[in-house]
């Protein structure tokens, strides 16, 4: 059930780009994980990347983060980038606030960490040790750590996959709030179709190393899962991912 105007609404952005990928390829052991990808992301745009395992989602994210290098093509990204990984990746020997401003010391750093922690609702945990936090709290610290640097590009690598369903809902709200306040360009890699529809302005589906489908999400935020358009998008995306509507319906 394709939406009538979806292709039309996809137009080259006039605004300056935050991310510019041109003919980007990356292969591992002769297997092309990414094959001549072209992608532009506007500043402040929230993009979700969906796709089955092994289709190059993580590779794309690592290229954008600067943790990996392209084999061919050009890649231009903001100088300041942050990543929230699937696991919190906090230094266990550092207090929460020290983790947020990792590498920096002093009263100013502490104050910045305090502000960031207040934003994620963890002001009271500034002096706690990471081992005392719950999974959701640790991931919120990771969010604070990512945002305290005021990144031009925020990369989210399945950051809520390990959280329970209720915590995940709260995290979605929090991410939206923070995105609206700081407005970085965001690339969210996820398996969760609903998560992508809830958060993203545009959804990419990767398949066989290429961008198979690009879907803009025309719904206003915050979004309602009960919205029929939401359901239609979900069905379409699931179909793209090769999951029939009947099997996906629960």
């Amino acid at each position: 059930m394709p939406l009538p105007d979806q292709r039309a609404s996809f137009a080259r952005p006039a605004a300056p780009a935050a991310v510019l990928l041109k003919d980007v390829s990356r292969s591992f052991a002769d297997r092309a994980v990414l094959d001549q990808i072209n992608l532009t992301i506007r500043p402040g745009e929230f993009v979700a990347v969906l796709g089955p395992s092994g289709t190059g989602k993580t590779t794309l994210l690592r290229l954008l983060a600067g943790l990996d290098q392209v084999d061919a093509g050009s890649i231009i990204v903001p100088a300041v980038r942050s990543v929230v990984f699937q696991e919190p990746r906090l230094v266990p020997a550092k207090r929460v606030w020290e983790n947020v401003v990792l590498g920096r010391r002093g009263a100013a750093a502490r104050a910045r960490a305090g502000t960031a922690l207040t934003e994620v609702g963890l002001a009271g945990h500034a002096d706690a040790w990471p081992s005392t936090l719950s999974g959701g709290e640790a991931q919120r610290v990771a969010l604070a750590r990512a945002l305290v640097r005021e990144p031009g590009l925020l990369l989210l690598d399945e950051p809520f996959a390990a959280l329970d369903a209720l915590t995940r809902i709260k995290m979605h709200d929090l991410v939206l709030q923070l995105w609206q306040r700081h407005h970085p360009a965001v690339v969210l890699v996820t398996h969760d179709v609903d998560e992508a529809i809830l958060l993203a302005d545009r959804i990419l589906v990767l398949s066989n190393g290429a961008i198979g489908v690009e879907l803009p999400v025309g719904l206003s935020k915050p979004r309602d899962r009960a919205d029929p358009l939401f359901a239609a998008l979900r069905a379409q995306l699931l179909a793209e991912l090769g999951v029939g509507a009947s099997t996906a319906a629960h």
Partner: protein
Amino acid sequence: MTDIVSLAQYALSPKQEAPAAPQTKGLVLVDLTPRARTSHLSAAWQVWRGRLLRVGSPLAILLVWQIASGFGFVAPEVLPSPLDIIAAFRELIAMGDLQSALPVSLYRSLSGLAIGGTIGLTIGLFAGLWRVGEEIFDAPLQMLRTIPFIALVPLFITWFGIDESAKIVVIVAATIFPMYLNTYAGVRGVDPKLTEAAKVFGLDARQTTLHVILPTALPSILLGLRYAAGVALLALVVAEQINARSGIGYILNNANMNQRSDIIVAGIIVYAVLGIATDLVMRVIERIALPWRPKLALA
């Protein structure tokens, strides 16, 4: 869990109107309902029984040991009786041997530990942080660490002479390896995901080392220090074969040559006490240095 318990309660109490069906189907049920709470009296008894046994069982062993020795079941040269060992302690203290041995030996151990520990730490960090360091040091140190120290005494004399420094060198050599191995393993054991995160957040190599690698490797480094401290005490027995006139190792060696098993056992007890003291010191150091680690119960 609660569900199973409640089901069990139903099934096991016939007065309840719950169906007995699960039982007839051959489902085996367990009653996990807590029994009547233990009374204060029996709780107090349990505490006291614990204390009594803790103190009582070593005392009982000592008593049996003394009786066995006293009636001649155990020859004194095989195992001296507790009273013989106490007498050996008296003798060592009366002659001033123990009082003079402890400071001398502790000085040797601590000096050797400080130097050897620093060397091991430095090389361990070097090899852990830089591939070139690993390439230079790891293979030689892995080879050297298996050399039996007791066989090195003649070589140590040849290389380092017979002065006080030669004794300390033995301890230095013995303490380098545990410190090196644990520092190296600790640095290498830091989750690469953490250093990757540090890279993403713009930390340079120095900052990553200082803020991520070293703090995370510190438990392993302190474990190395703990081993090295133990080795520093054990190596006294070897070190104090080199022209020593005092020290715990010397007392043991001398007792060995003169077949004083009571003094040997007394020396072992001194070692045990030093081992416990080392452990306490290390616990304090770990508590100060690793406040983020969950505290282990001391019970």
